[in-house]
């Protein structure tokens, strides 16, 4: 088949178009690199930080530790209150009381000798 050139200057234009496309590609690569540097890296650092915070920060819904319970009992001991108000005071002042159910609360108290189980359970 006899081949006809589409246009007399076409192949020069094609060459130029290829170089323009390469320039465009280079620019896109640079932009991607910039985005990686300015956005992706800080976002990764932020995500890692957030993950760490979530992992290490004590949750409010966490079952109270024995230390927390002891703090509540120490607080109770330091306050001179009527026995009948003891349970209410514990509930008001203790982190344990706010997060744990009554049964859990009594269970934790029963484990510790600082407050007698009978005293609380009699209420």
């Amino acid at each position, binding site marked *: 088949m006899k081949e006809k050139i*589409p246009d007399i200057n076409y192949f020069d234009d094609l060459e130029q178009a290829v170089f323009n496309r390469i320039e465009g590609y280079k620019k896109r690569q640079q932009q991607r690199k910039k985005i990686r540097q300015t956005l992706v890296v800080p976002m990764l650092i932020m995500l890692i930080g957030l993950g760490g915070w979530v992992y290490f920060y004590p949750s409010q819904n966490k079952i109270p530790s024995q230390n927390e319970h002891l703090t509540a009992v120490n607080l109770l001991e330091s306050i001179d209150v009527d026995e009948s108000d003891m349970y209410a005071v514990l509930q008001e002042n203790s982190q344990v009381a706010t997060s744990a159910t009554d049964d859990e609360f009594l269970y934790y108290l029963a484990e510790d000798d600082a407050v007698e189980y009978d005293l609380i359970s009699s209420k």
Partner: protein
Amino acid sequence: MSVEKDHEITQLLATGKKQEAFSLLLKEYKQPVYWLVRKMVIVHEDTDDVVQEVFLKIWINLKKFRGDSKLYTWIYRIAVNETLNFLNKKNKRFFVPIDDYREYQSKIIDNDAFYTDDMIEKRLQKALLTLPPKQKLIFELRYFKNMKYTEIIELLGGSMGSLKASYHHAVKKIQKHLKLEINWDDDE
């Protein structure tokens, strides 16, 4: 496009002069690659897009060229893959049904100045449109470019047996199509 020029390009690449190597490569191969793609795609505007994409890919991968194969084989392989990808994409798009694109290509063959007024040539080109892209490519390379089977295998891969079978099927389909067309004209 010559062995000496290919050697010059590979030498430039070996010394790290990528830009110079690519400029020379583009100068040498822009026309051969254009015609290879054009024969397959038919439509000039689409060919233009594919050819630009081919050279962009060459530029991106030029550092990876180790000289294991001939430069022209490497370039043609990229061009062939890019062309087949383009045609497959066109055929898969549900809003451009395969027949619509073939019809469009057929109209180009009728009207574009690139195709001569020779009726037999036009009929052959239209018959080629009925072939699947890879079969058409094998026919183009073997029939128009007089490439050896071994050279075609370098470009397309596969075995000698399947390549010969594809060429044989292509020839049979073209003959059948041309016979039908000639009978159709006689009836008229």
